[in-house]
């Protein structure tokens, strides 16, 4: 026979109490009130009227479960709106923990080689440098070798962008094309983890790389499958560069060092952790290496050595080999361009460069946060989320609970976090306060914008 649980609980019978018993209890109570306090438990007056069972941190997560109002027990006092109110409260989206904390996390996912496999539509030729951790390497030399006439055609084929804008001089288009050529291959490394070799003076069609998408598509129509592959790779690189630059929240300043061109014009895949600076450098023209001109001492110092790996960027352990086409025979004059001089320390700052492009104020008046340097207030939440704090507290709560015995009264502590996420102070009254403070002080949350954030913690003794 099925019994309804709510009915069973709500109609729990208790032995009927006679009126005499109730009167006797009433008299006892009133007599005890008149007499001096004696026989009372050790509960303090403050603890007596305090909230007996407030919400504990781990309940903050669990209480986000939406309970259908139909499951709310029927009150014997008639209908009340508590079911609706409870449901509304429990489905409050602020209580929920997001799967993705911030765009920074998304950017980390995007730069992770394991998370960004190459698109299945692009078939890649894996080079000897490829390891099982790489998602693939596009061997441009091999691609170029399949079409020996590509270089010659590239010298005679007009850029796809030419003529599209009648009011823009062709020279201007030609001058802007190399910057695209610089940014696309370099920035392609982080997202696709495929190292794109810069154009080789002997094999690779320069024009196809110089004007990524249009030229590639134009060429692919004329030159068949190899160009189609090349166009796809370049388009993928450009898209990845765009996504990565948008996601980038912490630009690093890269010294305007010329980057050594690698001799075999074949770069290996870059490690994800170091691809961000490389992409930054590529995005800011001041940080991108120019093609060393013939006779330039710097160019001579950075002369390509056959078989040598690309030099680190600015002394940093960057493994992204950003190679530029060496000056000399075989380089299209259109690719020679001049980089604007950059103020020291501002190189590689995308925000600065964007402001310069639109004619805004630069430099001294900008705060580090405004220029995107470091973790600005826009990158941190106003205050830590409940779930985050609950997680941090849950990590140290066992140690705090061990400070008091099972028979000791509950200790209501308050943890105050600083904006850097560490604990500034802990207030805990009663027994074992020092031990509880020490335990709770180890909690740490992610940095937040507000100066401090307090969180109440109830510490009960372990059984």
């Amino acid at each position: 026979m099925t019994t309804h649980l709510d009915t069973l609980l709500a109609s729990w019978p208790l032995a009927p109490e006679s009126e005499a018993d109730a009167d006797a209890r009433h008299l006892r109570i009133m007599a005890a009130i008149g007499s001096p306090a004696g026989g009372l438990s050790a509960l303090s007056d403050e603890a007596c009227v305090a909230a007996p069972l407030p919400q504990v941190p781990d309940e903050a997560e669990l209480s986000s479960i939406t309970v259908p109002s139909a499951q709310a027990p029927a009150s014997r006092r008639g209908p009340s709106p508590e079911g609706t109110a409870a449901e509304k409260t429990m489905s409050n989206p602020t209580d929920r923990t997001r799967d993705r904390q911030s765009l920074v996390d998304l950017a980390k996912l995007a730069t992770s080689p394991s998370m960004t496999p190459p698109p299945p539509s692009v078939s890649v030729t894996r080079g000897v440098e490829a390891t099982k951790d790489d998602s693939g390497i596009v061997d441009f030399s091999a691609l170029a070798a399949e079409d020996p006439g590509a270089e010659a055609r590239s010298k005679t084929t007009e850029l796809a962008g030419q003529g599209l804008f009648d009011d823009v001089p062709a020279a201007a288009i030609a001058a802007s094309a190399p910057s695209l050529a610089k940014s696309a291959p370099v920035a392609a490394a982080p997202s696709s983890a495929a190292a794109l070799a810069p154009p080789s003076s002997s094999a690779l069609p320069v024009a196809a790389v110089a004007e990524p998408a249009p030229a590639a598509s134009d060429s692919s129509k004329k030159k068949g499958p190899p160009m189609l592959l090349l166009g796809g790779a370049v388009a993928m690189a450009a898209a990845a560069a765009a996504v990565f630059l948008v996601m980038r929240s912490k630009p690093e300043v890269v010294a305007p060092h010329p980057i050594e061109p690698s001799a075999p014009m074949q770069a290996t895949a870059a490690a994800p952790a170091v691809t961000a600076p490389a992409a930054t450098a590529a995005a800011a023209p001041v940080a991108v290496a120019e093609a060393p001109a013939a006779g330039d001492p710097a160019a001579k110092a950075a002369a390509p050595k056959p078989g040598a790996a690309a030099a680190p960027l600015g002394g940093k352990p960057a493994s992204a080999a950003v190679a530029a086409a060496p000056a000399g025979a075989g380089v299209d004059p259109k690719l020679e361009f001049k980089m604007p001089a950059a103020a020291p320390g501002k190189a590689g700052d995308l925000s600065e460069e964007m402001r310069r492009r639109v004619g805004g104020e630069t430099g001294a008046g900008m705060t580090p946060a405004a220029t995107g340097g470091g973790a600005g207030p826009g990158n941190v939440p106003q205050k830590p989320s409940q779930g985050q704090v609950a997680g941090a507290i849950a990590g140290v709560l066992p140690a705090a609970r061990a400070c008091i015995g099972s028979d000791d009264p509950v200790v209501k502590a308050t943890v105050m976090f600083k904006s850097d996420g560490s604990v500034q102070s802990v207030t805990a009254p009663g027994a074992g306060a020092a031990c509880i403070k020490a335990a709770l002080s180890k909690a740490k949350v992610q940095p937040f914008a507000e100066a401090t954030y307090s969180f109440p913690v109830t510490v009960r003794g372990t059984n």
Partner: protein
Amino acid sequence: MTPDRTSCNDRVPKLAMAIPTDRDLAQRARSGDAGAYGELVRRHQPRIFRLALHMLRDRAAAEDITQETFIRAWRALEGFDGRSEFYTWIYRIAVNVSLNALRSRRASRLTSDDARVDAAAIESRPGASAGPAGDAARKQQYEALCEAIDALSETLRTTLILVCIEGKSHEEASGILGAPEGTIAWRVHEARRKLKAFMAARGFDVDEGAP
């Protein structure tokens, strides 16, 4: 305001106006009127006793808790600002005193005679009894239910007693326990789920839904 059902119709409005509310009585008690406080005790002591009985499972202990609750409320009456209902406030004190007593005697063994089960066995409601066999089955059911409730955590058990046995709404339980209504709802949901699982494991077919 509760109308007097036993009075004549022409006297109802007059008597209804004469019955002071808890708030009035508490106000008078704060100013030292012991009679007003006595009336509050008379009104609320059965429910406090019932709550204490469910919390401590022992009639004598429930008597002590009831007495201590009203003594402590009298001493703390200065702090009652009237923003909440008096019964919410007195229930909170009763829960605190009960939990404190439970924690202090946790190590000691509970009495073998559970006042809750005894009461269920003694009680005979119209239509509820189905003879000796039915009474025995009913007692077994309440014994299992008591065991299931005792197996709950302190938080779930207290919330379940307030909401499902004492009939408090989520809002009232929220005011008594100091937790958000959503948390109260979750606790009730979780307690009922565990009760149902426990009872099912013992062979009792219980349904969570209300009839």
